[in-house]
């Protein structure tokens, strides 16, 4: 079993296999399952992600009314304009938003690694797909590669906003996506690790401050930025840019930042955007309470 990113990359490069293959083999070993079983389960998750994006792009609205409809706005904008940040980035953004809008509306999603950060991995996957034209197999592998990096973060740091802030959720998700994009684009396992490191470095310190405690504001747009961050970092890694701080040390830094984060910034709706005047007003409206509560 690999315990960190260095071991994961070493396992892949020494055997001349992809990160996704390392993950598939480990899963077969741990769960005592056949390749078909492991692969089949992941394929089902891929179907759920595709369906969630479809639903989100048709337009959904959450029960609170705080989120919904932005994925449609972005897609319409793309039909009539050339996005300044490029078609692929905006496509990834709209699909990440679509997924999280469906999640906020209590629709069915696949956590990657969490529900609040469920947009980054599928959002980037279904955008990059249009440019790289991957096989279905490569798309399933994208999820195993994402999962391999998320596995390391989950075991060595945290993927919980309540424990480590948004950096642990969207930060991890964006890093996982970046690593998977690199593999799909033909990069090396080391380049995947660099992409993960570059992404996570730029999400360090991000707090979890959901307005009214709902996984909506700012979570949906954090996924949008996580997705664009992932695409950018993947391009940088593919260009040969490396992170001066190794990926495992970035993950460790993220863990330590999370440990020192006050609880107001760890999914308690007590600080950050949740505690702004407008955040409090929205909270009062959602729960039908008076603002004098505190």
């Amino acid at each position, binding site marked *: 079993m690999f315990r960190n990113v260095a071991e994961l990359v070493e396992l892949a490069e020494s055997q001349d296999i992809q990160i996704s293959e390392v993950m598939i083999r480990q899963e077969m070993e741990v769960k005592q399952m056949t390749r078909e079983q492991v692969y089949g389960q992941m394929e089902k998750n891929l179907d759920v992600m595709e369906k969630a994006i479809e639903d989100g792009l048709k337009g959904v609205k959450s029960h609170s009314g705080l989120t919904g409809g932005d994925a449609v706005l972005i897609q319409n904008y793309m039909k009539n304009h050339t996005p300044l940040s490029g078609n692929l980035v905006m496509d990834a953004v709209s699909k990440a938003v679509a997924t999280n809008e469906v999640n906020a509306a209590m629709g069915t999603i696949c956590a990657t690694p969490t529900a609040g950060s*469920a947009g980054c991995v599928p959002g980037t996957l279904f955008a990059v797909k249009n440019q790289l034209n991957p096989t279905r197999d490569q798309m399933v592998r994208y999820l195993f590669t994402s*999962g391999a990096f998320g596995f390391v973060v989950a075991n060595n740091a945290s993927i919980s906003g*309540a*424990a480590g802030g948004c950096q642990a959720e969207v930060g991890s998700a964006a890093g996982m996506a970046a690593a998977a994009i690199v593999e799909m684009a033909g990069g090396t396992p080391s380049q995947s690790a660099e992409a993960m490191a570059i992404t996570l470095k730029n999400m360090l310190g991000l707090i979890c401050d959901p307005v009214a405690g709902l996984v909506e504001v700012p979570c949906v747009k954090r996924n949008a930025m996580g997705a664009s961050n992932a695409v950018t970092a993947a391009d940088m890694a593919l260009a040969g840019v490396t992170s001066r701080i190794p990926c495992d040390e970035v993950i460790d830094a993220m863990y330590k930042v999370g440990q020192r984060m006050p*609880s107001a910034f760890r999914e308690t709706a007590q600080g950050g955007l949740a505690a702004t005047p407008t955040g409090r007003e929205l909270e009062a409206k959602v729960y039908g309470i008076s603002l004098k509560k505190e």
Partner: protein
Amino acid sequence: MKYRSVFDIIGPVMIGPSSSHTAGAARIGRAARHLFGREPKYAHVHLYGSFAKTYKGHGTDVAIIGGLLDYETYDQRIAQALETARSNGMKVRFHEEDAHTDHPNTARLKIGDDDGELELVGISIGGGKAEITELNGFELHLSGSHPAILLIHNDRYGAIASATAILAKHQINIGRMEVSRKAQGEQALMVIEMDQNIDDSILNELERADHITQVAKISE
């Protein structure tokens, strides 16, 4: 290692909006349901930390009750769990606690009916994964990532041997086990995590074994 499977990371498939506050909460409720063995008639749910502050927005309440109704994380019926519980005659109360706990997402469930009661503490550690840390006053570390059996037994010599002998006879491999007791010579709890689910017939056999008073299982 807390997480052993890639599907802890890419997964679970679930109803939104939060893996820790919705899916993890549902899993805590469902573990309680399985350990209790039937649908309870009442449930007192004590919520701590982030659970206490944000449970309404995250649907933590409906998720825990959904779990008590034996719903999976992806079951669309979770959204109506409170109404369903009420119409089934289950009395439900939520308590927002201020006390500080080791883990920010902690829930204490007291569930029961005329025939018995069960008290359990669960934590939701992220990505939909939950652990059971306390059962009826016994501390334990139940990850939920393997099928497990829990045996209440007398703290006497031979109790462990009688349980493991039965498992060995049926060629069941034990992945991990722990034993705890409240005081010497009194009630004890044995937790056995295995690689595969076991049949109810083996459970019945365990229940009849020397020194063992109660048996429950958690399937994968």
